[in-house]
């Protein structure tokens, strides 16, 4: 499926991929086996997000998230969890850099992925921080040492 984006069009911002992740978030919920946890919030919006990561060696084994926020922040965090499992910290940072470029410039990733759905965000600068909320929490969690999480 080739996505044709008209950047100024609002329906592009909220295109099918985003609406789908918002309505049926993947990996939503606390991860009881998580060894790394971090939270982020946008005080001006009231959005918040907690990301749970279970490491398997150097790589992300499982991810989960909780929180509340707009469709953009919820969908982007949901999508993120599907993109980062199996990745190392360095790989995750690279994917985040690419995602950031997509949401700030509208440039689609070199390789096709659902991340392209977020290209429309760049036309709405106030919403970029919504799109990156969960990603910032995930990278903060990744940089922590492994530790048991209270149940």
């Amino acid at each position, binding site marked *: 499926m080739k996505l044709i984006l008209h950047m100024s069009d*609002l329906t592009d911002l*909220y295109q099918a991929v985003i609406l789908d992740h918002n309505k049926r978030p993947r990996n939503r919920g606390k991860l009881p086996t998580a060894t790394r946890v971090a939270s982020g919030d946008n005080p001006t*919006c*009231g959005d918040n997000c907690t990301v749970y990561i279970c490491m398997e060696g150097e790589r992300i084994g499982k991810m989960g998230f909780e929180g*509340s*926020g*707009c*469709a*953009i922040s919820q969908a982007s965090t949901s999508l993120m969890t599907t993109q980062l499992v199996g990745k190392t910290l360095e790989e995750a940072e690279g994917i985040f850099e690419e995602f950031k470029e997509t949401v700030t410039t509208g440039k689609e990733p070199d390789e096709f992925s659902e991340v392209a759905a977020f290209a429309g965000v760049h036309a*709405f600068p106030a919403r970029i921080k919504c799109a990156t909320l969960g990603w910032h929490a995930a990278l903060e969690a990744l940089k922590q040492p492994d530790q048991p999480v209270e149940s």
Partner: protein
Amino acid sequence: MTHDFSNLRVDFPVLDQHVGGRPLVYLDNAATTQKPRSVIDALARYYERDNSNVHRGLHALSMRATDGYEAARVRMAKFINAADSAEVIFTRGTTESVNLVAESWGMANLKPGDVVLCTEMEHHSNLVPWQVITQRTGAILKFVPVLGDDAEGGLDMDALELLLTPEVKLFAFTHISNTLGTLNPVKELCAKARAVGAITVVDAAQSIGHEIVDVQDMDCDFLAFSGHKMAGPTGIGVLYGRRALLDAMPPWQSGGGMISIVEYTGSKWKPSPERFEAGTPNVADAIGLHAAMDYLDAVGRPAIAAHDYDLAQIAREALGKLPGIRILGPRAGEPRSGLVSFAFADVHAHDVVTFADQDGVALRGGHHCNQPLMKKLGLPSTTRASFYLYNTAADVDALVISLSKILRFFRAD
């Protein structure tokens, strides 16, 4: 209604534009109001003809600037029915006005064990300064609860009776809630506070541009508001203070303009209002605010209140029919100011605001500087539509049509 409200829009140049291909429907008036041509002209005229520093100047421009600035003060005293224009202090806005009372009166009068009473519906501007000053003085900060799952019950007046003890030295509360649209019984609250010897600080930010605010009728000790929420410029606001209290208060900022005699080792202060206006004041915006008062009184404040509050009632009724909506504040048909806040369980306020913006409808989504209340109500954010004299019933229709589209979009499978 005596005034024709159908075409006041033409007095406001900024409203003559399209957003999202449609005529702008500006419903963010509780955040800031638009300015009529007469205010914009007054500002331009001042800078083009009269700009000069005020007081002590003996040349023509300085005398004109001083006259304009002091005329604005006299006009403001009349606007709020202050007994004396020396009771009108120009500030940057509501926040600075409240900070002035907290710093000056609070530091001079509050002791450990004293109580400062607030309400659960205060804007951060009438909450955070009291947190800071009670922490510094050892006084205790207490809150009058708000009743109801959707805050529909207003302030808990029974709890207020119990909270108003002789330890309460100051009671700070809002006239109108910027989040709920609740109209508080200011006169009654001031009388109850006075009965226990507490002074009152009224936040009139949400009422001053809509209805008659009469400080002598309210019998409040202090009243704070911003010019930009009453069709005036940004950067100017007012603190009204009872003369006897102001005369006993120390300055909160010091420097030029507020002194009578300065020696190297010490200085003497001028009386109010100069004592509280250190430095070059905001002359231009005071003069712009004068023009705003003239505009509002030409339309008539009782008529403006009736118009704005009616639109909010119409909006509340129409929005109440949208499936899955939660509306905060007074129930349908009960007294309500010119705003409506609402939330959908399945569509976040920021998505609503972004969508409505594409239809040219300007709303506000968020916590409305009222984080503790939102937390109490279990809401991360709400969407707020707030009305002013240039809005019409057609703007309510545009709001409802846009919201219906948004719900269809997000709820479609």
